[in-house]
């Protein structure tokens, strides 16, 4: 396989342009495919023969076992587990009263809600206070307090861990260029690696349960923190550093008092990212025994309780939105400065208020049991009613007719033939097509990467499943574009609608995707269309978001110039706004593909024949090698698109003179 791609790899010769070379590659691919259809192509060219597939999984297993047992990594990590376990026990005791040292918990829900309210007020005024306190009051009233605190007890350990590790690596990468160079590709792979690949090693090395959950969450959340830290530190202006040097700072002082405060904004954006990624892992880590909201959600879905799982979804969204808004407010908020001589209590009024309210509610809960905890019978869960509502909606005739039509037409006439066609393309031809795409859009370097990456996928022996994964991703992204782009264009016309749609995007992104898998199945049955529908919702978010942002940031002078030239609205849109917004939209398109690769793995829950299903299967065992190979296949495919599209976007930006 490798030599087929090698011989067609483009170089500078013959004076062909990139596009022409891409056309040649497509031509060869078409010839190969036609040969396949006429039955002239030897079987070995259609699919790599089984006996040529190297035993990557076996080799990896051997390496893992060597590192794990012979080098004693397992002993080390089990030691770390003890430490982590101790930390988690402390937070677990405080938040939901697990019987462990210091044995003083659980903190009453009223106290937590009050403190959240005060923090919210401090960061962003009344609305934020309402959001902070309201989230916790909702959680308690709906009867999810304990499980939500089980989740939080892990997050309050995992998020700071990810923050400090990320910060440390970020500083290191900024100081030492070689670290930066070494770390970049690792981060790209980490960001595209499916989460199921993080989970299994976490279980093996850190014991099933909250410890493994905390580790997987931490690892998942680290990459953006590193990137943002490095970015922030690189942007610190030399003048500030000069000033620091002149006042005689030591290297540590310079870092602590000059660099880090100057990079504050970027670092806090990193914090925001860490929090969001931690929350994204809440449900997924339930697969490896993490208790809390995720585990409950899976149990609810396992007994077909749509309403209750929907409520859990809302709690997760509220938590996410609250933490997101608060950390963003923190980014914007500048450190306060007081006049000399302000009394101590006035400077720390908010802190004192928070502590005061906390103590008040802790005391109160000694006398009023409702302030301590709400029992199941006191809560306001509307699970049954929601169940009926959802089932009622799915049972409306119009809905049923629409889904029936989609299933009979889109699924049978379009999706399934498309999948079969993709599967019928011979492997070398497929690789050539991908190379042609990368060459045409990106450039020579991207084409080389595409060739190498997809050849590796072919060598992994999971080609058919990889193609099916790719098919789901492509179909979903294409449909998402047909819906998401017009939606973004229309919404971008007015400020009001932009805001509304962006809020919907935020919600859709944090709402645990598992919740809408069940309605998707009920609508479409266990079919490709249910799978694609569930990916679609997720992939549409970045497309719409970046379209709105791209269009709204088109310089006013440009649109005004168009108006003056007497352009109609349509002309303005097509000739001025869209071309200028295109690079930003391309970033959204890229994210859509990344999200789709993420979601396609989750969709294995519905029932697919792709890599996700195999990955899910490996979770139950100890098959680390296979798990890793599958994960890398997904990462390689995602990276190919990532590299190519981002290159194109930055080229376009340069062409338009929009800068970075």
């Amino acid at each position, binding site marked *: 396989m490798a030599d087929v791609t090698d011989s067609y790899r483009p170089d500078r010769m013959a004076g062909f342009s990139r596009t022409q070379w891409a056309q040649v590659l497509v031509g060869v691919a078409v010839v190969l495919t036609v040969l396949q259809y006429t039955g002239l192509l030897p079987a070995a060219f259609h699919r790599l023969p089984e006996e040529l597939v190297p035993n990557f999984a076996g080799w990896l297993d051997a390496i893992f076992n060597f590192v794990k047992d012979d080098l004693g990594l397992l002993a080390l990590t089990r030691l770390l587990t003890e430490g982590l376990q101790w930390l988690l026990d402390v937070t677990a005791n405080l938040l939901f009263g*697990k019987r462990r040292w210091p044995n003083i918990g659980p903190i009453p829900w009223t106290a937590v809600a009050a403190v959240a309210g005060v923090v919210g007020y401090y960061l962003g005024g009344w609305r934020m206070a309402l959001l902070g306190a309201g989230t916790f009051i909702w959680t308690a009233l709906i009867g999810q307090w304990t499980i939500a605190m089980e989740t939080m007890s892990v997050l309050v350990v995992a998020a700071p861990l990810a923050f400090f590790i990320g910060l440390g690596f970020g500083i290191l990468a900024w100081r030492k260029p070689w670290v930066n160079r070494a770390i970049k590709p690792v981060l790209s792979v980490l960001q595209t690696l499916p989460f199921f690949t993080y989970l299994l090693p976490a279980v093996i090395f850190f014991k099933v349960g909250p410890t493994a959950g905390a580790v997987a969450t931490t690892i998942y959340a680290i990459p953006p923190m590193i990137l943002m830290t490095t970015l922030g530190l690189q942007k610190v202006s030399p003048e500030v550093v000069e000033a620091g040097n002149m006042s005689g700072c030591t290297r540590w002082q310079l870092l602590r008092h000059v660099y880090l405060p100057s990079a504050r904004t970027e670092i806090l954006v990193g914090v925001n990212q860490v929090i969001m990624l931690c929350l994204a892992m809440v449900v997924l880590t339930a697969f490896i*025994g993490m208790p809390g909201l995720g585990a409950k959600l*899976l149990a609810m879905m396992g007994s*077909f309780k749509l309403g209750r799982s929907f409520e859990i979804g809302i709690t997760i969204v509220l938590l996410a939105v609250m933490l997101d808004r608060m950390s963003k407010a923190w980014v914007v908020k500048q450190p306060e400065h007081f006049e000399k001589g302000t009394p101590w209590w006035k400077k720390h009024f908010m802190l004192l208020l928070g502590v005061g309210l906390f103590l008040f509610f802790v005391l109160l809960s000694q006398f009023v049991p409702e302030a301590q905890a709400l029992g199941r019978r006191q809560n306001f869960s509307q699970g049954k009613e929601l169940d009926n509502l959802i089932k009622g909606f799915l049972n409306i005739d119009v809905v049923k007719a629409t889904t029936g039509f989609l299933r009979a037409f889109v*699924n049978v006439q379009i999706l399934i033939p498309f999948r079969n066609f993709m599967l019928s393309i011979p492997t070398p031809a497929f690789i050539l097509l991908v190379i042609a795409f990368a060459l045409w859009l990106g450039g020579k370097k991207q084409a080389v990467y595409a060739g190498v990456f997809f050849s590796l996928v072919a060598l992994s022996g999971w080609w058919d499943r990889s193609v099916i994964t790719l098919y789901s991703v492509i179909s979903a992204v294409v449909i998402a574009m047909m819906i998401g782009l017009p939606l973004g264009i229309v919404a971008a016309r007015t400020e009001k609608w932009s805001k509304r749609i962006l809020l919907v995007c935020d919600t859709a992104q944090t709402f645990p995707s598992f919740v809408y898998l069940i309605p998707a*199945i009920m609508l479409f049955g266990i079919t490709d269309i249910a799978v694609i529908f569930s990916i679609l919702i997720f992939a549409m978010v970045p497309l719409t978001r970046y379209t709105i942002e791209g269009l709204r940031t088109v310089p006013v002078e440009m649109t005004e110039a168009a108006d003056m030239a007497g352009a109609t609205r349509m002309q303005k849109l097509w000739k001025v706004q869209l071309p200028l917004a295109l690079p930003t939209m391309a970033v959204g398109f890229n994210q859509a593909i990344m999200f789709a690769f993420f979601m396609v793995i989750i969709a294995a829950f519905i029932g697919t024949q792709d890599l996700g*299903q195999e990955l899910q299967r490996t979770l139950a065992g100890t098959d680390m090698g296979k798990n890793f190979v599958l994960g890398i296949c997904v990462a390689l495919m995602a990276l190919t698109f990532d590299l190519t599209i981002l290159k194109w976007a930055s080229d376009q930006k340069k062409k338009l003179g929009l800068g970075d």
Partner: protein
Amino acid sequence: MNKFTTALSAGVVALMPMAAFAEDSSDPIVIPIHNWSSQIVMSHVVGQIFESMGNNVEFVTTDSQAVYESVRLGDVALELEVWEGAFGASFRAALEKGGLHDAGDHDAVTREDWWYPMWTKDACPGLPSWEALNDCAAVFATAETGDKGRYLDGPVDWLKHGQERVEALGMDFVVVNAGSAAALWAEIGAAEADKKPVVVFNWTPNFAEAVWPGEFVEFPEWVEGCDKDPAVGPNPDALYDCGNPAKGYLKKAAWDGMKDKWPAAYDVLTKISFTNPQIAEMAKFVDVDEMEPEEAAEAWLEQNPEVWQGWTGS
């Protein structure tokens, strides 16, 4: 709950001649819970019995296949629902590696096979015979399967051999694999509204029986060796040409170290035995009556003292 536990402990203390065992360790007995209701409630029932004996108990959510590895290593102390069909293979594999052992069977029997909700019988009156099912295969057709019927099998990794059986018995069915148990319920739930006939993989004891009454399809009866020897079963050239065993076991498994660390609790564990109706009742508390698992366990203990006091009282 506290008042109740106290009363419970008092009762147990009165009933139990204390001298019979060495003292149990005060370390928590870790009980694994999975993602289906009966197992969660049963774990809490047993946990509360242990607590009433003065033990500390903790629960940890784990994967139902991976749990045997954890029992083996002593990360968790026991497993209360070892299904022959679903987990027999993982259990036996762990048994061979050593570290855990069989702590006795429940009275309950388990069965897993092709199943249909009752309304399906209206469209295909010959059921539950499999020949009758095959004769009305067209009733189960969907847009994707053409004129063949569709059978929704469990997730591929449950290894239920639906495809092999369709081939071995020459049935006009297309086998589609669901990705999860939740996906199975969603299909039945979607079919329920207009009573569309469906045939899916299902098992007992299970909450689904309470929500959707139904029956198993009767395939040629299971004969030992049906999965290993083609000659066994109606088709002399094929494996998997019989139904699954109609009376599979439901076992308990224990970590080897449990006997020494918590002798009293271990003794109770070996005596514990639930029946199918008891398990169904536990599941019903949660799935139909919307109780939390802890409360369901309490309620069950309260209503069935004669069952469990026999285990602790000896």
